[in-house]
């Protein structure tokens, strides 16, 4: 059984069904990219995978003993408040919350974990800066560091490179690749950047209200759906 299994799931948004007949499985160690046009239901699917939105029909199950507090999540940038006075370290450390158990405060070990994740993303020197004063790329690194504090098995990324310039985006992809390989963390990434998705991920899920393609990244480039979408994204 896979880490995440979707069986015939349908999701609705404000009473309107936006996704139907969604069936796929994410195996341990996969790197899955979810692609599709705007309004295809990508963000709704992410909310479903995170357990924030229950399917209206069908089933979504966590396998391999996966618990919600073992998931890391990188939200879309727009959902974060712009005027919040919080230091980088406070934000990253808040990712450790699901390891806190019944303790009221972070232990030394958790604080070291946060420091380590900041080093990994090369933001250690920004630790006392205010989150809202950072550039978009830096903010994204902070949120990724926070997601890495939270994850133990699965990392779900919602549009990780949207709004970033190509050089920074490439750097961020590199970090995600490294985490996936070295720490054996399963990655599910929703992306606008279909070329990046095909280059980085092992498997592709293309949705547009329902599933149009699900398979390996190589097959996707050969598939008519994938070929057309890749071509469209080029022009």
């Amino acid at each position, binding site marked *: 059984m896979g880490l995440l299994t979707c069986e015939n799931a349908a999701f609705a948004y*404000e009473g309107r069904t936006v996704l139907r007949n969604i069936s796929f499985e994410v195996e341990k160690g996969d790197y899955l990219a979810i692609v599709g046009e705007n309004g295809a239901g990508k963000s709704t699917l992410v909310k479903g995978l*995170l*357990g*924030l939105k229950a399917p209206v029909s069908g089933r979504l199950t966590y396998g391999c003993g996966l*618990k*919600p*507090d*073992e*998931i*890391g*999540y990188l*939200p879309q940038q727009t*959902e*974060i*408040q712009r*005027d*919040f*006075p*919080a*230091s980088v370290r*406070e*934000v990253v450390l*808040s*990712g450790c*919350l*699901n390891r*806190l158990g019944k303790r*009221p*405060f*972070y232990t030394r070990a958790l604080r070291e974990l946060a420091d380590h994740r900041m080093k990994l993303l090369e933001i250690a020197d920004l630790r*006392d*800066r*205010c989150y809202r*004063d950072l550039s978009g790329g830096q903010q994204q690194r902070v949120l990724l560091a*926070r997601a890495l504090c*939270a994850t133990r098995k699965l990392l*779900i990324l919602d549009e990780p490179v949207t709004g970033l310039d190509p050089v920074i985006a490439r750097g961020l992809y590199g970090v995600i690749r490294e985490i996936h390989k070295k720490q054996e963390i399963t990655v599910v990434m929703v992306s606008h950047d279909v070329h990046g998705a095909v280059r980085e991920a092992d498997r592709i899920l293309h949705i547009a209200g329902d599933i149009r393609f699900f398979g390996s990244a190589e097959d996707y480039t050969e598939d008519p759906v994938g070929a057309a979408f890749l071509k469209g994204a080029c022009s």
Partner: protein
Amino acid sequence: MSVFLEMMSYPFMVRAFIVGILVSLCASLLGSSLVLKRYSMIGDGLSHVGFAALAIAYPFGFSPLYISIPACIAAAFFLLQMKDSAKIKGDAATALLCSGALAVGVMVISLTTGMNTDVCNYMFGSILAMSRSDLYLSVILSVVVLVLFIVFYERIFAVTFDETFAAATGTDSRRYNVIIAILTAVTVVLGMRMMGTLLISSLIVFPSLTAMRVTRRFRTTIVLSAVLATGCFLAGLCFSYLRSVPTGACIVVVDILVFGIFRGVEKLRERRG
């Protein structure tokens, strides 16, 4: 200093002093979270519900605190849940609750006891309102609020900064929203007597907004707003004693002045880059 010693020679001033400091601390700590969660108006909504509750309690001779605390907790719970349902938004619900509860309160008062000084005190606040039994209950409750806030500090930060992330990664954010709601309701009811229904929300909003002009970390924001709240309360209380002006109004005027100063500092900083 001699003014201060003179003030402290009156038992009612000592009571106002103790409860005032504790409530200011509670309100400023919770305020930082509420302002950032876009619930600045919740204090107003709750205090009006509290007003209606005590208008109903008054003719029956119940102690107002015992009625208004449960009523406010229920209202806070209701308001903080609003975000989930999209039909009526949180700000609209607060506005409805505000005027609705005030109307009910005024009607009940007019039909029963009629407008009198007691009612006026509840609207605008009075330092004389605190009785001895009120003192004990207020001290216990506000200490409980402070302790719970500190114990749940990390969770409150996480739920305030990014509720979706907290929920997605296995934190029961609904539970912490309920805790914030209960703590806020208790604080509002305790502070209402002194600040008045119309001014209590300033205790929640001003210190944290003022602190946020200059701070860059959440923890510093919390600490600074607690310090500012205490300072403004003391200054307001002294002025209220010297000039016999309602306490709530004095505290708010001091809050406004301090806010102006901090805003000026912020502008200067921005100009320097």
